[in-house]
C-alpha cells in the first residue's frame, strides 16, 4: 500500500498537482470541462427551468407578465405625465428595452444565489461550478425568448416592418449573453464569499437600469454625466436591439464595438477569476 512515486503517475492524473499556472493551461482546462460537462449544464438548466415555474398557476406567463406590466407603467408616465419623443410608438420602445433588461436582471438575480442555494451540491459533488450561474443565464434566456413573442406581436400591431438588419440580432444577443454571463460568474462567486453582495446588488441593479436607455433614450442626458453614462455597455446593447429590430439599421459601430469588447473582457476576467477560486468554494460557502 505504499504509493508509487509520483513520477510514475501519468500527468493527466494530477487533479491537485500544483498546476502549471498560466492563462493557457487554465483556458485549456476551462474548455475541456465545458465539453465534458455540457450535458450536465443542460440537465441543471432543465431542473432550474422546471423549478422556476413549478407549483405556479401562470407558469411561463410570468416571463411575459413582468415586462408587460412595466411597459404599461412607463407608458403611462412617458405618454401621459411627461410625454417623450422616441421616434416610434413609446410602448414598443419601452418593451424593446425592458425585454433585454429583464433578461439581464433576472439572470443576475438567479445567479447571485446560485452557488449559495446549492450548498449540498457544492460541498458534496464535484463538477465545474460555472454550471450554476450559466444555468441561471440559460433559463433567463428561455424566458427572454418566450417574452420576445410579445414584442413581435406589438411590432405587428404597430405595423413595423423589419429590414435585413434583423439578421444582426443573434450578434446582439450573443454580446448580451457574454456580458451577462461574465457578470453572473463574478456575482455568484462574490456572494459565496461575502453575503453582502446580494443586497448591494439589488441597489446597484435598480440604479443601473436608470443609467441605461431602457425606458428613455439616455442620449437626452448631456454634460459630464453623459460621458460617464457612455461607459455603460448595456446602453449600446439595448440600443442595438432597437436598431436591428425597430429602426431597421445596424447598431452604431463605435458604441456597439465598445460594448462587444467590454463584454468579451468581462467574460474572460469573470471566468478566470471563477475558475481559479473554485476550489475554495466548498470551504467558504
Amino acid at each position, binding site marked *: *500500500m*505504499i*504509493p*508509487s512515486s*509520483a513520477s*510514475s*503517475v*501519468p500527468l493527466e*492524473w*494530477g*487533479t*491537485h*498537482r500544483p498546476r502549471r*499556472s498560466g492563462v493557457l493551461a487554465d483556458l485549456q482546462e476551462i474548455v475541456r470541462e465545458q465539453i465534458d460537462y455540457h*450535458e*450536465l449544464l*443542460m*440537465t*441543471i438548466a*432543465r*431542473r432550474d427551468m*422546471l*423549478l422556476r415555474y*413549478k*407549483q405556479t398557476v401562470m407558469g411561463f406567463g410570468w416571463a411575459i407578465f413582468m415586462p408587460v406590466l412595466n411597459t404599461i407603467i412607463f407608458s403611462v408616465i412617458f405618454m401621459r405625465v411627461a410625454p417623450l419623443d422616441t421616434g416610434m410608438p413609446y410602448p414598443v420602445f419601452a418593451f424593446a428595452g425592458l425585454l433585454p433588461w429583464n433578461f439581464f436582471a433576472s439572470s443576475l438575480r438567479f445567479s447571485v444565489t446560485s452557488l449559495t442555494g446549492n450548498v*449540498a*451540491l457544492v*460541498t*458534496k*459533488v*464535484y*463538477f465545474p461550478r460555472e454550471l450554476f450561474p450559466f444555468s441561471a443565464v440559460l433559463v433567463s434566456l428561455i424566458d427572454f425568448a418566450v417574452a420576445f413573442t410579445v414584442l413581435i406581436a406589438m411590432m405587428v400591431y404597430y405595423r413595423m416592418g423589419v429590414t435585413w438588419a434583423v439578421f444582426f440580432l443573434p450578434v446582439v444577443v450573443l454580446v448580451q449573453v457574454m456580458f451577462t454571463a461574465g457578470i453572473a460568474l*463574478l456575482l455568484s462567486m*462574490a456572494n459565496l*464569499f*461575502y453575503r*453582502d*453582495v446580494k443586497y*448591494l446588488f439589488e441597489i446597484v441593479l435598480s440604479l443601473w437600469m436608470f443609467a441605461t436607455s431602457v425606458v428613455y433614450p439616455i442620449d437626452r442626458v448631456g454634460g459630464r454625466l453623459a460621458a460617464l453614462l457612455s461607459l455603460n455597455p448595456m446602453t449600446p446593447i439595448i440600443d442595438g436591439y432597437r436598431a436591428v429590430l425597430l429602426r431597421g439599421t445596424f447598431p452604431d459601430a463605435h458604441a456597439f464595438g465598445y460594448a462587444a469588447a467590454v463584454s468579451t473582457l468581462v467574460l474572460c*476576467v469573470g471566468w*478566470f*477569476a471563477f475558475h*481559479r*477560486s473554485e*476550489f*475554495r468554494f*466548498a*470551504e*467558504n460557502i
Partner: protein
Amino acid sequence: MPKTSNAADPVVVFDGVWKKYRRGERNDSLRDLIPALARGVMGLGRHERERTMDVGENEFWAVQDVSFAVRPGEALGIIGPNGAGKSTVLKLLTKILKPTRGYCATRGRVGALIEVAAGFHPDLTGRENVFLQGAIMGMKRAEIARKLDEIVAFAGVEDFIDTQVKRYSSGMSARLGFSIAAHLDPDVLIIDEVLSVGDMPFQRRCVERMQEFKARGVAIIFVSHHLQAVVELCDTALYLHRSARALGPTVDVMAKYVESTERDRVLPRRGEIEIVKAQLLDARGIPVTAAEPGDELTLRVTYEAHRTISDLTFGFAAHRSTDRLVAYDSSVAGEELGLGTLEPGEQCVVDFAFRVNLARGQYHLACHVLHAPTWRHLSYLMPAGILTVRETRTYGGVANLELDAQVIERYRAGIEVRA
C-alpha cells in the same frame, strides 16, 4: 476513455496529503474582496499563507500526512472516530477540496456515494431527480434513460417514480440515490456511510452490489462506522485519526482501532461488589492478547465485596469487537463454585477457562456479577479482555466449527475411481 496503464497501477493515490482547516467564522470584509479577486485573476501570491506548515491560532490540521494507494479490484476501508478526517479525505479524493500540501489523484470515472441524495431536489419527481443526479454523477442522458427501469426497480420505488421526492420517506430517497450510483459504471467507487440507510433486504443488495463492483475490478474506498461491513468488504484498511494511525490488512488495522477505543471502557459500578481486575492468561499463566483457534485460555477475574453478600451469579461473555455480536454468553452460579457468602473487604478470584473456538477477528470479553434472586446487575466490566484470534482458514463468521473436508469416494459412470 483510453486505458494506457496496466491493471496493477493504482487508480487512487494519496501521497503525503495535508489539509488545514480554519476554526470559527471568517471575518473578512467586503473591502478585501477586490484585492482578493485581483490576486485570483492575476494568479499572484496565490495562497502562499495557506500552503505553509505553520498553523495559525484559528487553524488546525484535519488531515496530516496521509498516504495510500488503491488498485483496481481492491477495497480500502477507512475507519476512525468522528471528526477523524474521514469525510475530508473523501472530499479531497472527489476534488471538492484541495490539499494544503501533498498530492492526491484518481483515475477514470469516480462514482461517489457521499450522501447519496445530495443532488436531489425535493420539488422534482423521482424520475426527474434520477436524470439530474445521474448527470451530476457523470452519466450521459442516454445512458440514464436506458438504465432507468433497472435503477427504479433496484430502489424499489416503482410506484412513486412520478411523485415529488419531498413526499418520499428518507429511506426511499436514500435508496433511490444509492441505486443511481449502483448503476454507474465507475472505475473508482467512493462510499461514505450508506449502509445505515435502507432496510435489511436493501442493505444486503447494497453489499452484494459492492462485492460485484469489486470483482469487476472497481477500486473501492469505503468509509463506515459499521466495522463488520468493512471487514467483510475490504482487504486493507486505514485507521485514520487526523494522521494515519494504521494502514494494512483489515484484521490488523481493526485490532489497533478496537484497542484504541477502549479507553472509554465501562467502569465497574461501585456497590455491593466490584470487579477490580481481569486478566487474560494462556495455558501457562502468561498474559496474552492473541490466540489461535483451539487454544485454552483463562480469564482471571478478581471481585471485591463491599457488603455482606451471597447468591451471586458470575457472567462471562464474548462479543465480536467489530459489531458487538454476542459470540458467547453464559454464567455460573456462586453455589456451583462452592462460594457461600462474601464478607465486606473480601476478595475472590475466579478463573474462567475456555477454549478459543472462534473464527478470526477481535473479541471483547466481558464479565458481570448478578444477584441471582433479584436478577440485579451488581457489577459489569467490558472489556475484561480483548482477544485477537489469528487464523487463515475461515472467511467470515464467529464460530470455529473446525471444518475438516475430505474426498471419500469418486465415481465415473457408476464405477469407482481410485484417487
